[in-house]
Structure formats: C-alpha cells, structure tokens
C-alpha cells in the first residue's frame, strides 16, 4: 500500500483531519481484549462508597493544608502546607476532573457533576469544551488532526514540555482561552468538537470561572495580600507538576494514528501516594480500552487482561528513561516511535490496520 508522507498538522480542521476522516482513522473501531460480558458487568458496576471516601480525604486534605498555609502565612512554615495544597489543587484535580467527567467515579450523577465543576475550575479548564474534547480524545486517541488532547506533538517541543511542569502554560494558553470563551468566542477547533447546541454553555461556564478569578483579585487588592491568589489560581503554577509528571506518560513517545491502545498508551506502576493523586489513571491502557470501568476497579481489570498488554513500566523513572531517547530521535525524525513488545500470550497487533500509518516503527 502506498504511504503518503507529510508533516503532521495538529489543528482539528486541517490536512491531517481530512486524511484521518478519508482513511477511516477517525471514529474507527478499536482493538479490545476479549472480556466475558458477565465479568465486564461486574467491573463496570458503580458505587458511591470509594469515591465518597476518597473525596472526603481529598477535601479534608485541601482544607487542612490551606488552613496551615493561612495560619503560617508570612513565615517559611507555610511552604510545606502550600506544597501539599498546590499538588492537591493543581494536580489531583486533573484525575477528579477526568473520572467525574466520565461519570464513573460516583454512581450518583450529581456527585460526579459537582466534583467535575470544582476540578475544572482548579484546572483552568472550561468544563463544557473539555468534556467534549475528552470525548474526542477517546474516539480518536492520538489520531493527528482529530485528538484535541495530544500533550506532546511531533517533533516534540521539549521546552514546552518542561514548562508544563511549572504551570506557566496554563497562564499562557488556558486562561486566555477561558477569557476568549467568556467573551462568547469559540475557536474553529473548539467548534469542531462542541455541538452547536452546547456552545452557549461553554460561554456561561467561562464567565463563572473568570468571575471567580476577578473576585479573588479584588479580595487580594482589598486585603493588600497575595494570599487569596496563592489559594485561588496560583496553585496552577506551584502545584501542577505532579499532574504533568504522571499525565505526560500516558501517550508520550508511543505510536500515533493507530487503532490499538496497546500501541499508543502506557500503563505505569506507581507508588500509592501518586496513585491516590492520580486516581489509578496509571492503568491507562486499561482505562482507554474500557472507559466504563471506574478507577477503583482498574487494578482488577489490569490483572484480568495483562496477558494481552505490553508489560507496564515498573516506575515513572523507568518510563521516562524509556521515553527520553525516543524524544531525542523524534527531534530529527518525527516518525520515530516506541513500539512496545507484547507478551507471547497476547493477540498480535493488527498490522493490516496500521501499515498505512506506521511505516517507520521502531522496536
């Protein structure tokens, strides 16, 4: 089959979009490991219990660390409290946003919705547009021109990836996006995945977010203190590092334009604190293959299907060591990627589906 080589166009309305639609990569049928319906039904079952427990711990830790930070404000003793507060606000909000956006964290819908809205605010994300962008991310995971959530594009912008750890990019991109949305303006890319009937909701949500930021600024001016901003908004700068540390590993360095999550998604074994912050999203292949399974059931799902998946990276350190040389090679040769080996018990990758799009696989 002839292979057309072209530079990747990551816009959602460009040449790569057209090609993805024409070649059937967009909205394609993806590979799934076979799991009996009865077993899958058990894994999919929803329960409020685990998420209520975790959310009580989460909110108590947020309020406790904030209280400590406020109490010790003006002395160095506030630093460890804001270190914890920052990670809870700036990083753990991402996994709460994610799970509650899927509606899998709690069984009760309104509980998912409340946590989703709070977490969206903490992340400087428009809760409406991001809900739709994430649906697209699951339809067309790492399909160039279709997926709105590709964190590291090719060739990789390593400076940008490094800056993401500081949260500066949220102020460069996310905040202006919220402002633009608040003025009633959705970009062509946003309009490509947010249905017209939902677009007004994105504007309303953005106005709420901007309104809260303005109130925090007003309070800071009134008190003549940075403290309100250290509590609201600025945690993105000092607390999003863990979100980026864990989140970058989801797909970085792996294949794009394929229809098998085993090729473009990574599962990484992590320590229990990171797993609490990340709500088990380290089981990311499993999550993408079966997004109906709640976070608390992902370890069970992993045990059930691991015979069919590449072996997980045993640590974040291991994963980054694996990724780094791939990124360096991609600087010169953007088609290069890491093709992870399957165990002998796995069903092989379907080369017939991928030969058009992955001509330069590196193993």
């Amino acid at each position, binding site marked *: 089959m002839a292979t057309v080589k072209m530079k990747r166009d990551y816009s959602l309305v460009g040449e790569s979009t057209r090609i993805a639609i024409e070649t059937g990569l967009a909205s394609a049928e993806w590979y799934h490991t076979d799991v009996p319906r009865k077993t899958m039904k058990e894994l999919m079952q929803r329960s409020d219990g685990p998420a209520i427990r975790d959310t009580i711990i989460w909110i108590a830790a947020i309020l406790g660390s904030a209280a400590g930070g406020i109490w010790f404000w003006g002395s160095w003793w506030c630093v460890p409290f804001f270190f914890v507060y920052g990670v809870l606000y700036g990083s753990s909000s991402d996994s709460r946003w994610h799970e509650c956006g899927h509606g899998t964290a709690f069984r009760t819908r309104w509980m998912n919705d409340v946590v989703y809205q709070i977490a969206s605010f903490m992340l400087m994300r428009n809760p*409406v547009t991001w*809900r739709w962008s994430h649906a697209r991310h699951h339809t067309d995971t790492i399909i160039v021109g279709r997926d709105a959530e590709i964190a590291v594009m090719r060739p990789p912008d390593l400076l940008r990836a490094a800056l993401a750890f500081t949260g500066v990019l949220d102020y460069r991109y996310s905040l202006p996006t919220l402002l633009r949305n608040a003025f009633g303006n959705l970009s062509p890319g946003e309009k490509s995945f947010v249905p017209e009937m939902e677009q007004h909701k994105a504007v309303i949500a953005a106005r709420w977010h901007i309104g809260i930021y303005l109130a925090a600024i007003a309070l800071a001016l009134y008190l003549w203190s940075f403290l309100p901003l250290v509590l609201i908004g600025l945690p993105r700068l000092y607390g999003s590092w863990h979100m980026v540390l864990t989140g970058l590993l989801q797909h970085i360095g792996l294949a794009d334009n394929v229809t098998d999550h085993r090729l473009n998604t990574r599962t990484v074994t992590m320590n229990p604190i990171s797993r609490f912050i990340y709500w088990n999203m380290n089981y990311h292949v499993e999550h993408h293959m079966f997004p*109906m399974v709640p976070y608390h059931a992902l370890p069970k799902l992993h045990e059930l299907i691991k015979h069919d998946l590449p072996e997980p990276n045993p640590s974040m350190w291991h994963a980054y060591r694996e990724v780094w040389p791939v990124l360096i090679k991609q600087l010169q040769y953007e088609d290069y990627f890491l093709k992870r080996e399957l165990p002998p018990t796995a069903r092989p990758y379907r080369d017939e589906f991928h030969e058009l799009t992955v001509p330069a696989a590196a193993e």
Partner: protein
Amino acid sequence: MAGWVEACGVDDVEEEDVIRFDHGGRTFAIYRSPDDEFFATDGYCTHEKSHLADGLVMDDIIECPKHNGRFNYKTGAAKGAPVCVNLKTYPVRVEAGKVMIQVG
C-alpha cells in the same frame, strides 16, 4: 400485528442488563429493567456509532460504553453531554416467554 418480531427469550436477558438484537439490517438494544420489565431502543448510541449492548444498565439508565453518554432506555431521553439526541424507542411485549418488539 404489523412489524412485530421476536427479539429473544425472556431468559436471554438478565435483570438490569441489555443485549443486542439485529434485524433487517438494523441493530436494536433489548433491556430488562430491575423490576423485570422489557424495553427496546435503537442499538447504537446517538453520539457516535457504538453498541449500547456493551454498556451498563443502572436502574432506568443505559450508559454507552464509548463515552459514558447516558439515556433513559424507557423513554429514550438523552441525559446530558456527550449525548444530546434522544434514542428511538420501540414498543415491546412478552408472549409465551418471548420478547417481541415492534420494529415497523
């Protein structure tokens, strides 16, 4: 009566579950509610082409396996993003242990 077809036996669907039924080039989803009533809808999610029969039934809700869009399978009502378009429902009756749906 016009348009009635046998979809499955009553025992083919567990309580609070759903199965797929293909007929005449179309796909349907057959539900059995927790209170032992049967319902039928189109088989594909209205958001994207995904089989609802692979989804999760909770009370009177079917959740799509692809993006977790939720519908009330009794009325077909879409319950919020990412589903905005209601699901088409079909009349169902049970006769002699068989689930019949009116597809016409």
